[in-house]
């Protein structure tokens, strides 16, 4: 059986303690880039406030476990035999720090979970901040930007 690799990159993006935490991506800024992959969105799922709070209350392991489970299920269920890398373009490092003194249940933190297929055929699951300036849909052409500060960002292609 072909050996499959599951890469898990956990990327922490700071969230600030506001009632509505939206993304603050500055997509028009020239910053160092390691590489850019091109592909399409296979599926989009908006992660709601309730889901996130449940994940927080159950702890990191539950959140990560559910994510990995989903990726493995996709990998075997699809039968493509291709590697799937999960990129948690996530949030929780800053969020935990802020939540020590706040009521987490009052927060609305919106994330978007994107299943991406790049031109080479590899699939990636990316979770990043919801950005009302850039709403993703299935079949959208995207760029997967590996920034030099060890973060990944998904942009629509123009």
């Amino acid at each position: 059986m072909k050996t499959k690799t599951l890469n898990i990159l956990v990327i922490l993006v700071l969230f600030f303690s506001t009632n509505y935490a939206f993304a603050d991506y500055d997509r028009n800024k020239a910053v160092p880039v390691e590489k850019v992959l091109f592909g399409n969105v296979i599926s989009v799922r908006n992660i709601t406030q309730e889901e996130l709070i449940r994940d927080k209350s159950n702890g990191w392991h539950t959140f990560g476990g559910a994510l990995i489970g989903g990726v493995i299920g996709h990998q075997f269920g699809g039968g493509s035999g291709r590697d799937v890398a999960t990129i948690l373009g996530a949030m929780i490092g800053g969020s935990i720090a802020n939540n020590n003194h706040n009521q987490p249940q009052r927060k609305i933190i919106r994330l978007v979970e994107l299943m991406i297929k790049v031109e080479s055929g590899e699939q990636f699951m990316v979770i990043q901040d919801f950005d009302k300036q850039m709403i993703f849909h299935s079949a959208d052409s995207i760029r997967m930007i590996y920034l030099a500060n060890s973060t990944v960002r998904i942009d629509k292609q123009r």
Partner: protein
Amino acid sequence: MNKFILATVFCLSLMTLSGCSSKSVVRYGDATAVETTDVNFGSTDLQKVASQMTDSLLLSPVVGTVTANSRPIIFVERIKNKTSEHIDTESITDSLSTKLLRSGKFRFVDMGRVNSVREQLEFQQNSGMVDTSKAIAFGQQVGAQYMLYGNLSSIVKSNEDKSDVYYKFTLRLMDLKSGLVEWADETEIRKTKGKEFVSW
């Protein structure tokens, strides 16, 4: 006397304050003026890239041979943006294709409008609202002979005092029949932003 002085001072203060108040003003500017708002990709860069690439392509001896007796048909593939910036690369290809069309040496097919064309032809053929003897039939379009494609990449370096952004735009022309790249060129742009000490 004192009242007169006080009134004068008050009026002068009012005039000064009203002169300092900010208000938004709209003006027309020169669209080709050099824009140096920041180091990010801007209108001047787009114009420079489009202009230099068009000139290079039109002056190329190979292209001169190709266009000597005919007007080759080109389609422009999307420019691959490998920078961190959300740049409208379609705007670059629009400028390129417009300049090349205006040269009179090339013709273009627009792949971005294929669905609209298909809808219109289906309307002409099937809606019953168009005289079928004059309706445009499917299968009469001309295919492209050449493909124009390229990449835009950047290298960014910065420290506390200085930012340096280097852009490289590469463009290539491929013969779709033979697969040969008949022409290629690249344009480089370097932009720096640093602190300046102003003296009086």
